[in-house]
């Protein structure tokens, strides 16, 4: 592939490109300018052409490939983040989102199928949960694409470059990476609405806590049955003396405590504490949470 290419429809054979080319890499064939392999990509022909018939090949290809963002959206929990990210990127770049469902099967089979379905896409987004993160790795390996996990934002520049922001160092920082134009990108994204409601020892808060969990479309559990993975948003409904909950809170992005007395160990682990009127506060929070 040469570094620049000519649109046969636009070329009017003015011959100015031939005169502009410093390495004689342009010929006229069948009434259309043709670029030869010795092109050095200096773009003198692009600047000279009055018809704008010559474009950089890589950019052209990147723009065509970015007509759409492919979001792999399986049914079930964890998929929402991928679709949200795909939509945000597409909106910013004027592209459309194509949703690809998955029918199950092995990671290898799914990667094989996806590599065909998403062969032309410059960006593929998958959920950041197993087995889709394994699928992302397998797909990237198959496509020769750059792959990044748990991506927060992707910005696509007009020249085809991507800027990708990911969380780093266990949530202590964010790193922004530049991805070269023309590179294919496979990313995984976690749902921004990844929340968990944990019930403490105050039984009076259960009903309001369940109401809040429903509003957030989030699971709930008791303080002595915590999951290993920290959610993005942790809601603590009532105090608990277990140390595991405080440890989980340190790994969550945001922690809200309802009915946690000031001075309680958990209060210091929360970003926001509603020490009093916990039921009313939970209902108000459920009513306005986006």
């Amino acid at each position, binding site marked *: 592939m040469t570094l620049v290419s000519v649109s046969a429809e636009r070329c009017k054979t003015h011959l100015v490109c031939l005169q502009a080319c410093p390495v004689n890499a342009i010929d006229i064939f069948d009434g259309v300018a043709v670029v030869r392999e010795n092109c050095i990509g200096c773009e003198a022909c692009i600047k000279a052409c009055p018809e704008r018939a010559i474009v950089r090949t890589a950019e052209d290809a990147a723009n065509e490939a970015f007509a759409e963002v492919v979001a792999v959206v399986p049914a079930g929990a964890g998929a929402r983040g991928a679709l949200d990210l795909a939509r945000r990127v597409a909106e910013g770049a004027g592209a459309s989102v194509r949703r690809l469902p998955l029918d199950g099967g092995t990671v290898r089979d799914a990667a094989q199928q996806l590599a065909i379905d998403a062969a032309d896409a410059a960006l593929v987004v998958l959920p950041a949960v197993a*087995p889709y993160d394994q699928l992302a790795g397998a797909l990237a390996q198959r496509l020769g694409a750059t792959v990044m996990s748990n991506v927060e934002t992707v910005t696509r520049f007009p020249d085809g470059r991507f800027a990708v922001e990911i969380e780093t160092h266990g949530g202590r*920082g964010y790193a922004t990476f530049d991805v070269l134009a023309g590179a294919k990108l496979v990313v995984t994204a976690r749902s921004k609405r990844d929340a968990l409601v944990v019930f403490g020892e105050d039984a009076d808060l259960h009903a309001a806590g369940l109401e809040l969990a429903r509003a957030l479309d989030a699971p709930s559990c008791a303080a002595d049955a915590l999951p290993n993975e920290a959610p993005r948003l942790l809601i603590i409904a009532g105090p608990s003396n277990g140390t595991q909950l405080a440890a989980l809170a340190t790994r969550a992005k945001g922690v809200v405590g309802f009915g946690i007395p000031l001075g309680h160990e958990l209060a210091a682990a929360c970003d*926001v504490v509603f020490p009093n009127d916990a039921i009313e506060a939970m209902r108000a929070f459920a009513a306005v949470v986006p």
Partner: protein
Amino acid sequence: MRFAAVVRIVRDPATITWDRVKRRLDVDGAAFIVNPSDRSALELASRLAGAQGFVAIGCGHAAGLSVFKEAAAFGASRLLYRSFEADGLVGTQTVLLGAVAEERPDVALAGQTAIDTNDGVLAGALGELLGGDSCGDVVDAKLEADGSLLAMLEDGSTRRLALPAALAVCRIAARKISPLAMMKATRATVAVTPVEQFAGNVTLRTVTNGVARRRSTILDEDDAAAAAFTAIGLLRERRAL
């Protein structure tokens, strides 16, 4: 049967501080640790390989080499380390995949995530590289008489995989290594290969502060709705919503 566990030597997030003067995370001063999830991979590799041992393939800052030797205490019979001086946020996967490609194990094990970059895609890439399948959320595995691998998953289900295969191992209880074993491990021989330059399409531009020290905001107001809106604003600042 050949087993390989990949080990990422990462900065301990607990020792990363915020440099107020330079207004950036002071990552350079942080301690090195074995990526916690990769400790689980080492543990499972040890259980699967038993006395025959396995190869531990490590990757990280050159100064993290001594930490990598911990793999020997888990029963790794060979230690290979790809070292680099630059920040390891870029290219770790590429480097590890290159090293695994040279070893061609029947079973490759990796931690489900990396604590520095939240990388959850490595096992999938390893499976594809080996020409086999991969499976995540693995908490245990055993080799079957028919030569397949039975993986036990976190949700209690099982998956049978033909070899070669790659496993993404999630948090499993790694045994406590005795001080004597750790001392012996410090004398283990490591084949170190310096990595001069990462190949790839990615460059690291900036690292910014994400979650500064948690500071509790007490909302004890009469207007519950106003307090709720304030809470949502604070959570958005922390990117929790």
